[in-house]
């Protein structure tokens, strides 16, 4: 099976780098990193991801705004997962791990768990 394309948008390069390393190690994913949220749309157009991971709190723009921008253009149905440090897992549980239909996952997260979630969202596990 062809590796799934994952776009990771987070201002912390060390984090996006580690996500890439962990996901690509499985052989099932190809990862593109974006550390400047203003470059998200351009990167998406180029990479054509099948799922996007977004941090919420970023300087200049928050994850919500970025996703809104993507959705407003050709990526209306692109599956997304918010990966955030400011929600507690408990808080997320309260909301069934999603807000307004967008799945959330709380940092810190283990690679295995992140992968599982991504595959859930993509429609298989």
């Amino acid at each position, binding site marked *: 099976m062809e590796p799934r394309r994952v776009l990771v948008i987070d201002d912390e390069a060390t984090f996006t780098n580690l996500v890439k390393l962990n996901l690509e*190690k499985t052989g099932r994913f190809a990862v593109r990193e974006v550390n400047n949220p203003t470059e998200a749309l351009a990167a998406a157009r180029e990479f054509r991801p099948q799922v996007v991971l977004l941090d919420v709190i970023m300087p200049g723009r928050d994850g919500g705004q970025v996703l809104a921008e993507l959705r407003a253009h050709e990526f209306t149905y692109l599956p997304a997962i918010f*990966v955030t440090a400011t929600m507690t897992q408990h808080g997320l549980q309260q909301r069934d791990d999603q807000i307004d239909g967008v799945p959330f996952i709380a940092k*810190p997260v283990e690679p295995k768990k992140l992968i599982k979630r991504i595959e859930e969202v993509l429609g298989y596990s």
Partner: protein
Amino acid sequence: MSRDPFSMLLTGPGTGVQSLLDALPDQFYIKDTHCRFVFVNSAIAHFLNRPAAELIGKTDRDLFPHRLADEFMAEEKELLASGRPLVNREVCIADPTDKLRWELTTKIVLRDDGGQIVGLLGINRDITEHKQAEEQLRLQGEALVAAANAIIITDSAGVVRWVNPAFTKLTGYTADEVIGANPRILKSGQHDPAFYRQMWETIKSGQVWRGDVVNKRKDGSLYTEEMIITPVRNVGHEITHFIAIKQDATERKRAQEQLQQLNADLARSQLELLETYENLKRAQAELIQAEKMEIVGRLAAGVAHEVRNPLAILAMGLGYVEGNLPPNQPTTTAVFETMRDAIVRADAIICELLDFSSPRVLNLTDQDVTRLADRSLLLVQHEVRRRKIEIVREFAPDLPLQRVDRIRIEQVFVNLFMNAIHAMAEGGRLTVRTLRDATGAVVAEICDNGPGIPVAHLEKMFTPFFTTKPVGIGTGLGLAVAKSILAQHGGELTVANQPAGGVCARIIFHKTDKEAGHGT
């Protein structure tokens, strides 16, 4: 030949008449027409402090201050000229020791057989003590009149004989209106007959009566007086009069009542002030707490974000490196486990902090508390089994549904279960009860039979970051969070040692108006 009347008298010392006259306490003397002493008795000699013989031939001028002597002599000259007797004149003179004495003086003229005035005869009676007594009485009389207190003097039958001006001022009755009448005209009707009877019997028996009386003035107005009635006895020790001294107590009574009222008001104000002060203190404490919470909240959010990002990197990094480990290296694997645990622990602390300090939005749904308790037990079953805890369920069926945030309440239950389980390190019994209390409120009880909470910790239990658990197991936010969740629901959480041992935590869901409407 006219016979000298003196010769009748002057028969020499020691003889009959002389000794009679010498025996008199009154001063007795005879003077000639030139006002010279011709005869003196021993009383006057004694008074003037001279031997009788020395006085013969002397006039007043030789014995008294000139001004006084001239007065006497003028008087005597007048007497000798007119023949009119001078009877009972009061004179004040100084004796040789300069003490003032009062004398009652009588002087008459002596005539010879032919009716010619040949001299004068004088008698002086010392009335000093009498005068002093008189003066005393006068002063006393003036005092009674002038006294600010009203005074009534009655006879032994109680008929008014005398009143002073202060009486008129107090009662409105003039002396004329009351003298000869009975003081009962002042009766107000506020005292029963027994009161007056007791008063009368007391004074009739010779004792002093004291008391407060409500009387009626001439104009009909009532007033209160303090009265003392003293019986007055005569020399035969019989009661002849009663003196009543009155003091208007109306003002005093009013002042007293006012004072009592003021005292009561003051006491009440004081209580109110104390209450207000306590309320203010509490409000201040709450404000400070709220402010702290806000600061902590903001701090927590910032800290959470800053700390969790590196934690996320650690987690990702661990995951990656772990995958590259050669197999069969148990120590290395164990080390990785430790590192993983550390990340989880760090995150847990941040979570609790965030949870505690952020404003909570409750997701309210109708829930059965029994089911919530039961579900929460499932969440801790691993710990229960590990420590071999016995679970006793005493669930009430058909509890009215409570509008609560399911996840939050389960969080509370889990927290309380974990506290109970940790208290029973060597195993024990966890009793979980749901019921309705006397007021109809739904209550859940979580009881253990562990060692109980030390008294020193009871007060601090709900304080954030107070924990008795070893480092790494509890952050100390659990009970504080649980209590605040309950408070947010309008409920209550209490934790107490049980008399039979162990601890019971009690969750009370207070009835809401809505629920009352549902019927039970």
